[in-house]
């Protein structure tokens, strides 16, 4: 699958997870690789990009018996962007599905 194209969708998935609760990087990577077939390493660049765009912020939190963890939290801009892009994506996916099904019917 085209990685460039997948990346945009993954950004949306990350935002949807963080909308529910703050997570640390590893948690996000595990969550995504459980559902979608990606190399684990690709999640961190996405997190960094989202942070540089101001959609996420980070903070460190001490954990009992371990080094402090870096948590990611969604910003207000992140929430707004997520709602907008989610609607756009779902609409787009619906249209693509219609097109591909039309293609299917033509073959028969």
């Amino acid at each position, binding site marked *: 699958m085209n990685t460039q194209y997948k990346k945009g969708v993954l950004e949306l998935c990350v935002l949807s997870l963080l909308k529910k609760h703050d997570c*640390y*990087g*590893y948690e996000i*990577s595990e969550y995504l*690789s459980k559902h979608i077939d990606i*190399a*684990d*390493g*690709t999640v*961190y*660049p*996405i997190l*960094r*990009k989202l942070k*540089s765009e101001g959609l996420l912020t980070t903070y460190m939190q001490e954990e009992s018996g371990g*080094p402090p*963890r*870096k948590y990611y939290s969604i910003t207000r801009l992140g929430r707004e962007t997520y709602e907008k892009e989610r609607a756009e994506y779902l609409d787009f996916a619906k249209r693509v599905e219609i097109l591909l099904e039309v293609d299917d019917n033509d073959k028969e």
Partner: protein
Amino acid sequence: MTKNEFLSKLADELKKKNIADADDIISEYEQHFAFKMADGYSEEEIAVKLGNPALIASQFESSDVDKKSSGKKITTVIGLCFIDFFAGIFFILLIAWEAIMASFSVCSAAIAVCLFSGTSPLSLIPSMPYWPRIVFGVSFASLFVLSAEGCIYFAAFIRQLMRSYCRFHHNTLAAASGSALLPSIAINPQFQAKFNRRIRSVALISLALFAASFVLGMAISVILSGALEFWHAWGWFGYNAVK
């Protein structure tokens, strides 16, 4: 690849690509190793699942594109100026060729009209009997159709080529300044399949008609004049007519 190998390779790649906060990124991957190892995976397994360090580093690169583009932009602009200059000459040549084709087409039409009507402005059309005149008229009329279609197609081609070039120009500048690229445009004209089929059949028919009527006109002329070089017999091109 072990954990240390992976991390040092990643650090090298990040440094090579001039990516800011490399330490921060490395510590994130270090934590990833720590968590995964706590879950019972081996260092090798984790490294494989993470992917190629060079590829990961290049993914970080795309998130801060705008940092290093400023120096590149001047070179791109200078390069584009050169390309524009040559492309400009090329387009002028193409347009000149279009003009030649168009005048050829107009001339064919004029000759066909003269032949059908039997007029000869400035005595440019040599005299000939009725039938060869009509058959040659048909041949020039089909030549007109063929060349006119060629003109139209070629004009569409030039237009599309220019649009495609402008898009290339725009995208090259956009890439240099790090802004979004527009999809590139195909070089050849994008007609609908139906239109393509139609122009193809018109071209074939007019070509066949031109060839057939031209040969037929020659044959009729030879028969009517009784000489293989009928243009001598009819006194064309400054020869004295043989009576």
